[in-house]
């Protein structure tokens, strides 16, 4: 046991030394000429879906001790959104998750994408969907970046498969992981709606521009000041964000996001 502790100490110190010696920005080689083609000016409402992203865009948990009855009421009465995401709907192991509770009370299905690992309180993003989900694809890397979401059928002009994923970016190195996961099969209609620390957007755009093709990236900012995070939407080129509305449900800030499928 003592040897193991010593080994850990050596490894930790060595890692800190080497990591500090390295440039922590992801490498950006090669072609930077990619620009997503302009989408059609006119929006095709038949191919438009909406989703609601609940987030304080801060380091604060979303729910805390605040009643979420208004959210339950909204989800129970609204049957048009493809999905509802709840950033920082943190959970305590063994205790009722607000997202599972909301899903039960509004007769929907709950999922949770953790942002970290911990023994007790885990940060993460809840996801509630109307549809029964047979596949919840996901991955994790170095226990600090989890990317996961629901394989859904968007009820558009023709029913369209959309895999709606989420993650939270806090460090530049995570961009490379996200890009790698996204590029595995851009043809499978993966749309990532997540949050990133404010200030990361240029690095994100640059990295993706050099490493991906046929994608779009949109970054949404709150109109309110003092937000630590922004929302990003990473999609194949055949999806485009058509704007968002900043609303409040009960005491919870919510961003209603419109995404069009360009077939």
């Amino acid at each position, binding site marked *: 046991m003592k040897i*193991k502790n010593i*080994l*850990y100490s050596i*490894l930790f110190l*060595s*890692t800190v030394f*080497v*990591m500090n*010696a*390295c440039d922590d920005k992801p490498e950006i080689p090669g072609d930077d000429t990619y620009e997503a083609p302009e989408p059609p000016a006119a929006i095709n409402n038949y191919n438009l879906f909406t989703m609601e992203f609940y987030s304080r865009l801060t380091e604060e948990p979303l729910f805390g001790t605040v009643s979420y009855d208004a959210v339950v009421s909204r989800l129970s009465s609204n049957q048009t959104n493809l999905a509802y995401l709840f950033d920082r709907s943190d*959970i*305590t*192991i*063994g*205790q*009722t*998750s607000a997202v*599972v*509770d909301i*899903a*039960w*009370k509004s*007769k929907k*299905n*709950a*999922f*949770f*994408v*953790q942002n970290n*690992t*911990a*023994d007790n309180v*885990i940060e*993460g993003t809840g996801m509630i969907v109307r549809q*029964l989900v*047979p*596949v*919840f*694809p*996901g*991955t*994790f890397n*170095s*226990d600090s970046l*989890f990317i*996961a979401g629901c394989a859904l059928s968007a009820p558009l002009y023709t029913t369209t498969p959309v895999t709606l994923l989420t993650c939270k970016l806090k460090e530049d190195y995570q961009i490379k992981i996200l890009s790698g996961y996204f590029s595995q099969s851009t043809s499978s209609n993966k749309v990532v709606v997540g949050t990133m620390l404010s200030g990361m957007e240029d690095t994100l755009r640059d990295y993706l521009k050099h490493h991906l093709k046929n994608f779009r990236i949109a970054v949404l900012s709150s109109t309110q000041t003092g937000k630590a995070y922004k929302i990003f939407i990473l999609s194949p080129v055949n999806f485009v964000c058509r704007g968002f509305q900043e609303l409040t449900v009960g005491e919870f800030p919510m961003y209603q996001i419109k995404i069009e499928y360009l077939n």
Partner: protein
Amino acid sequence: MIRYKNIVVTLLLAITTLLNAQQPVTIKVMSMNIKEGGRYANFDTDAFCECIRQYNPDFIAFQEMDYFTSRNGNKDMLTEMGAKLGMFPFFGKAFNYSGGAFGGAILSKYPFFNAQTLSSKPAGATENRVCVYVDVLLPNKRKVRIATTHLDVTADDQIRITSLANFNKLIIADNDPVPTLLIGDFNASPESDTMKYAKIKWQDIGAGTGNTISSTNPTARIDYVMGFPKTWVKKSYDIVAYPNLSDHCFIVATLEHP
């Protein structure tokens, strides 16, 4: 210089991972065939939750779960139990039933980062069968896969074997042996061809334990907790009967994987 640093970082991370890997996976699981969506309990989730709370499992593998069926009063019993127990639900539909769906399900105390529903309906089978699994990163950073299935009740072992073969291909990766449990109602006795086939890949962790059906007079063992790779250690393995909840006994097992 950068390449050298990358090699050093990779080596350090690899050694750290190896050290972490020494921490065992220790989990408590339950297997619950709840008979026709919970009919014995009149579809009352509180009755099931009361039973489950006595054991405080990390994972529950359900068979015969209803999802918004008219017979269960149009409710999602799994999510309801998840909310009441502080667990995360994942339901896998085998087929449409009674205005809703019927299938397998898992409740997990820990959030899962990946989940799948695998289907199999071999020639001659009367119903589609599913294997539902979730992948979890435990607090000690060990990954574990928990799966549940309910194999066909037909007399023909070959149908169950074919389904099992289909599931094996998708949930077991020999080159990446993630500790995996396949829990459920195999509709086959330990001596059957089905279980002989199952034991080629899987460890019958409860081998030698008692019968699981019926809950009032257990005369046959058809519910199992199977482990992959075959290095699981049984810390405890109990078969408990709740005739008010199901015709099956339930399995409660604490298991460790090194």
